[in-house]
């Protein structure tokens, strides 16, 4: 595969980094994107995560070129792209509703970008076959789009997006129309495909679990602003503020009080000796429900454990785990999740039971702000 300068010049896709600076887009008075700075490394799988209307799709569409920002810079590698029309950006995209061409069959859909790039019929056929094999749809080339299931359409859309070896792949909630089982399987498959292709991927979702499953890094977006960016572990274990703590995973926020020396405490227990960073303002304690454990008698290392006692208000068995809501200190609620151990030794709680809970100090997350409670 060496000397084919015209057709085969795009032999191996070299992934490109994306540099976004000061990207701003206003709709009326509303900022859809408020001076967003974002560095996406070459070959990275980055997820834009946020609630609907947060600006994540606007950002993706700006990268694809369907959305003209008011200001800012989008660079692919060294090249400024913000003024480049979408058809010259050379990025693959999987649309939310797949956007497969209904008047073409599966093979014609996948060959579409190759035809536009004047790739010979023979190479086109070869590459379509390889793409179909990659998404496990070999032999589906002659099918009509309306003869495919949702999952199959998803795969065709994916094949069409990477068959022309783009250096960047964008995905706009590609799994949201699939049922839960299929979605979870496709998450793993997409991840594998990304590893295989090595292409820089920007993925939009509002599903935090999906983001945690698939991403190298997650960029949390709210009100058009980048709230936090980090690996799934960082985002989950060290949320930057109440919004991230609440949006990613389950959490309980307890307000902390601060004394004169800067010590933060909840109900007479000192949680942190000095408030991190800017000491002014309110602080909260974030507790992940699954990090709490039931304490009977004394704990092994009392110095390293925060203690809470409360009364069970609700208890729900959910299959792989069980979930309880406790009333703590009179007017706080605390959510607790227990892993399901063997069916006989499952901790059985009933509403009204008094329970003592422990939380390892390293699992205590202190964040600025008080949440919306």
């Amino acid at each position, binding site marked *: 595969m060496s000397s084919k300068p015209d057709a085969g010049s795009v032999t191996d896709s070299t992934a490109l980094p994306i540099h976004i600076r000061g990207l701003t887009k206003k709709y009326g008075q509303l900022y859809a994107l408020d001076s967003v700075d974002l560095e996406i490394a070459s070959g990275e799988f980055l997820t834009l995560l946020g609630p609907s209307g947060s600006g994540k799709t606007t950002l993706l569409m700006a990268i694809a070129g369907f959305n003209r920002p008011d200001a800012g810079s989008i660079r692919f590698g060294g090249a400024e792209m913000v003024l480049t029309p*979408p058809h010259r950006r050379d990025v693959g995209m999987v649309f939310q509703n797949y956007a497969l*061409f*209904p*008047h073409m069959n599966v093979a014609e859909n996948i060959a579409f970008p190759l035809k536009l790039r004047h790739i010979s019929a023979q190479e086109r056929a070869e590459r379509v076959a390889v793409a179909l094999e990659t998404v496990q749809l070999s032999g589906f080339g002659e099918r009509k789009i309306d003869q495919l299931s949702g999952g199959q359409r998803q795969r065709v859309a994916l094949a069409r997006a990477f068959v*022309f070896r783009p250096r960047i792949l964008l995905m706009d909630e590609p799994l949201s129309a699939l049922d839960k089982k299929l979605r979870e399987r496709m998450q793993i498959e997409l991840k594998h495909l990304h590893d295989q292709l090595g292409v820089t991927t920007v993925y939009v979702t509002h599903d935090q679990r999906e983001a945690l499953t698939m991403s190298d890094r997650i960029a949390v977006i709210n009100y058009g602003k980048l709230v936090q960016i980090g690996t799934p572990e960082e985002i989950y274990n060290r949320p930057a503020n109440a919004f991230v703590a609440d949006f990613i995973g389950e959490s309980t926020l307890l307000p902390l009080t601060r004394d004169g020396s800067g010590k933060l405490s909840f109900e007479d227990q000192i949680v942190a000796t000095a408030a991190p960073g800017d000491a002014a303002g309110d602080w909260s304690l974030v507790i992940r429900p699954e990090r709490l454990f039931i304490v009977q008698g004394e704990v092994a290392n009392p110095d390293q454990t925060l203690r809470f006692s409360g009364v069970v208000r609700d208890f729900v068995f959910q299959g792989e785990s069980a979930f309880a809501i406790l009333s703590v200190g009179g007017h706080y609620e605390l959510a607790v999740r227990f892993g399901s151990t063997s069916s006989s030794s499952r901790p059985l709680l009933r509403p009204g039971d008094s329970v003592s809970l422990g939380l390892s100090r390293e699992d205590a997350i202190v964040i600025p702000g008080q949440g919306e409670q």
Partner: protein
Amino acid sequence: MNASNRGNEDPALLNAMALRAQAVREQRMLLSLATPAVLCVIAIIVIPVGWLFYLSFIGGDGQPTLEHYQKMLTYKSYARVFVTTFQVSLLTTLVCILIGYPLAYFLAILPQRLAGLFMLTVLLPFWTSLLVRTYAWLVLLQKKGLLNDFAIAMGLWETPIKLVYNLTGTLIGMAHIMLPFLVLPLYGAMRKIDRDLVHAAANLGASPVQAFWKVYFPLSLPGMVAGSLIVFVLCLGFYVTPAVLGGGRVMMVATQITAILENQFDWGAASALGVVLLIATLFVLIAAARLLKLDVALFGKR
């Protein structure tokens, strides 16, 4: 297991008879809703058209005859009338497509509310009388009409141009009147095209022109075919506008029928013309259905 529908001992067939009877009853009820329409069709279409057929085979002496159809084959003027009819209809359809496609496209890309407003400008003439619109064109296009006066005043041409009582005038008037019949189905089809498809085409490397011809246009084609057929078929039997704006120089089948009735009072010959036009129209529709999978275009079936 070969389940017999009639055995009502079998617990698997509990109430089966009663349920089936209920289903049949419901279907009959639904069918009965169509009764008034069916009666209307019989009264105002089937019977008159049948009568037309009958008349076309009756000679002047009241005896059954084929003379009317023979005349159509022997006299060249009849053939010319049919050629003119198809020519004018085809040209009108083409003019409608040329004007209507960009218009429908423009409406389809507008935001819904604005599109409604602009659509009103297409529909408003549609709601005024056909005769009024036709005579309005006469006023505009005649020798001392607005258009000629204006153009001469502007120095565009010096002597009045003949814009009416000929093919040009007929085409202008017919295209204007037929335009909504093309724009409405076309607009409907275009609205249904997912904007993301055009985005996807661009994303895959298609320039706006390529995206239009490779994705948008093929998807709008069913709507265009449906609209064009409606226009074409309506044109075939059009009377008022060709009669007024053609000024007797554009002889189409409908005008010819009137002429025969006025001059010769020959019901048989007039009926025969009507029958041939009807059959020709049916052939056009059948051919179009075969060629273009019309059921998809007109009824959205797959």
